[in-house]
């Protein structure tokens, strides 16, 4: 029997406002933009809830009821859950409703959607614990499968997840690493004993997430029927379709037909003989591990490089993230809730992504998804806020008075 395994990522960062140099020392609020810009977190969360979370989850709830055999999984960042609670409670209620069907699994991740694993293991573990507690409080379930931010994975992420008691861990199914292996089986991280490794089928996933509305694509328009045929033609045990949840309604707008596609998809897939929907935990329990997979260097689900260069590839990004983590000991020692919270919100990977110059430098500005005018403006706002944070922590005494 072949399975289809869905995992949707739900994440919203706390975007840093246009924090000005001259605000340093005078303004300890970094995330409270109230303008009409895309730095206004409330505005963005309300918009994404309206365009994506609410309509998609309503549809999903209907589909789960119509098809008792349908299974999906979600990973929610803590920063997304907090903002949904505050700005879009109706969307959060819908997420609770789908989890309550019992057909939905919730995965574990870092509360702050951070890259802490690669910078501070203790901080990483504190964030995973905080996330687990939030998931238990809101959804009443306990995450059994782990996914790291941006699907960033290395052998030691797998080893850590095994020690922490997870049944499985999720990564990108990137051919140069897999070699002859197909992503459509269950594997084991090299050096691990029992934990399972699930790999994203990026071709089929990206057909929906990235190419769905692209009129230059030879397969456009993509119908559920056609997509079902592709799944039928795909060999293996499990076809792992992992994507951002905002694909539905936000990245691909309603007028592209994405909701019709989603609505018809379960029916088309169920036409395939001997097929099932499974959650990651069900996949892990059902299939044998085919082989071990060695990923000694970091692999992510980003762009064509599939590494961390979109987040920490340039000197600005490295200066920013290294300055941030260098504050850890002092922040922890201060035991000040607001200070700790601000420091953690600044760890969210999106901040560093906004500073990425890869596309900007090559003139491909349209590939630069960011609420800032440029990576340089993103860096300046972030570093100004960080200067203020340093001042509050007391690691920077010599900063000149602003006024």
């Amino acid at each position, binding site marked *: 029997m072949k399975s289809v395994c869905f995992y949707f990522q739900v994440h919203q960062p706390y975007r840093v406002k246009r924090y000005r140099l001259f605000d340093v020392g005078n303004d300890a609020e970094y995330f409270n933009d109230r303008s009409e810009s895309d730095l206004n977190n409330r505005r963005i969360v309300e918009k994404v809830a309206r365009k994506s979370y609410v309509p998609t989850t309503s549809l999903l709830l209907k589909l789960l009821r119509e098809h008792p055999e349908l299974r999906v999984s979600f990973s929610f960042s803590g920063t997304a859950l907090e903002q949904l609670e505050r700005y879009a409670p109706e969307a959060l209620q819908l997420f609770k409703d789908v989890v309550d069907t019992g057909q939905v699994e919730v995965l574990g991740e870092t509360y702050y959607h951070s890259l802490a694993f690669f910078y501070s293991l203790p901080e990483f573990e504190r964030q995973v614990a905080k996330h687990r507690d939030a998931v238990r409080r809101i959804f009443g379930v306990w995450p059994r499968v782990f996914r790291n931010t941006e699907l960033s994975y290395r052998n030691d992420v797998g080893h850590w997840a095994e020690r922490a008691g997870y049944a499985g861990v999720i990564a990108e199914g990137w051919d140069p690493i897999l070699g002859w292996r197909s992503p459509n089986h269950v594997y084991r991280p090299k050096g691990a004993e029992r934990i399972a490794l699930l790999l994203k089928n990026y071709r089929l996933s990206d057909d929906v997430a990235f190419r769905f509305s692209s009129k230059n694509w030879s397969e456009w328009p993509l119908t559920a029927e056609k997509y079902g045929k592709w799944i039928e033609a795909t060999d293996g045990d499990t076809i792992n379709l992992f994507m951002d949840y905002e694909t539905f309604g936000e990245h691909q707008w309603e007028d592209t037909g994405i909701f019709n596609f989603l609505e018809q998809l379960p029916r088309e897939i169920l036409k395939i003989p001997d097929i099932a929907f499974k959650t990651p935990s069900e996949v892990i329990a059902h299939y044998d591990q085919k082989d071990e997979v060695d990923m000694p260097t970091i692999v992510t689900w980003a762009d064509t490089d599939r590494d961390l260069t979109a987040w920490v590839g340039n000197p600005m990004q*490295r*200066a920013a993230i290294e300055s941030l983590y260098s504050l850890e000991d002092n922040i922890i020692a201060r035991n000040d809730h607001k200070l700790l919270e601000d420091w953690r919100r600044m760890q969210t990977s999106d901040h560093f992504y906004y500073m990425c*110059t890869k596309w900007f*430098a090559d003139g491909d500005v349209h590939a630069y998804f960011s609420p800032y005018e*440029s990576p*340089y403006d993103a*860096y*300046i706002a972030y570093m100004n806020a960080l200067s203020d944070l340093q001042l509050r922590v007391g690691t920077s005494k010599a900063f*000149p008075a602003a006024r």
Partner: protein
Amino acid sequence: MFGWEFPPFNSGGLGVACLGLTRSLAQTGAEIIFVMPKRLDIGAPWAKLVFADGVILEPFDSALSAYATGASYDSAGGEGIYGQDLFSEVARYARYGGELARKEQFDVIYAHEWLSFGAGMKAKEISGKPLIVHVHATEFDRTGGQGVNQAVYDIERAGLHAADRIIAVSEYTKNIIVNTYDISPEKVSVVYNGIDDTTAPKHREDLSRLRALKRTGQKLVLFLGRITLQKGPDYFLRAAKRVLEYDKDVFFIVSGSGDMERDMMVFAGQLGIAHRVFFTGFLHGRDRDEIYAAADLFVMPSVSEPFGIAALEAMRMGKPALISKQSGVAEVVNNALKVDFWDVEKMAEGIISILKSPALRYSLGEHGKREAHRITWDDAALKVSGIVQDLLVSSR
């Protein structure tokens, strides 16, 4: 082609643009007669000057200079064989355009900027050949929108309406042409300026005069352009004051000349930062290269900048650039900081951020350099050449 000035006889970006474009156009196979008003010294070897294959330089003895205003012409120019005032000299240039049109063979007439529009129109009238006008700046840019000279505006307007095609150096300038001169947008094509080895400043190893200063840890922030309302030198000085409140070890260099030079020296004194601001006057050649090379960053705070080649020059040398959004160059470069010219606080923030962050300095410098190398006169000439071909076909 009716022009203006050519390096080294130039006082700004216009001459640089004429040189870069003409040279690249000649390489596309075009033969160009470049007519340039210049006060001739008897015995100067003009006829022997060859700028590029296919370019014949045709000097026109005149006291006209680029960026002339009525007042500056009166104080510097009109005597002897020259016209009594700027406008009679422009009229004399126009008549010369007509004379030239009778004796020379050509397919297209091309006029740069308003002083040569009269010559272009006259040549068109005599020869019946199509006219292209290339707008590098309008009267609205030069005056910052205040005190527009009606006579200049009228000449610009007449030239724009008489032209068969108009080339603007940016969308920014195209908008002004369409909205302020009542021109149909279809008639206006945007061709951005470029930069290449022939016009770019060169890297110099020895910074003999500035090295000692830099060695003491002082940082240099450069303004390079004419000191006129259009270029926003006053905003530069206001930002300088704000920067110095944060960091005392910064020098500000104002390189250029213009009608606000004296006012700006006084203004620096009023702001209490005169000891931190150098006025270098207009620099040519090696001096200019040296000042670019010594700068830690380049600031172009223009109030209204049709293009802004100086920003490309700085970027090409790997200097981080901070440019006003009210500029054409801001449409083509991504790897520069961009601010509204009036946003002195943000300008100061950008300057301080670049000075204090090696990572930002490096990223802007490296990416800006790569980007500036991709913006070439060859590309600009190719577009102009296409427009010329188009016009020849449609006017046949």
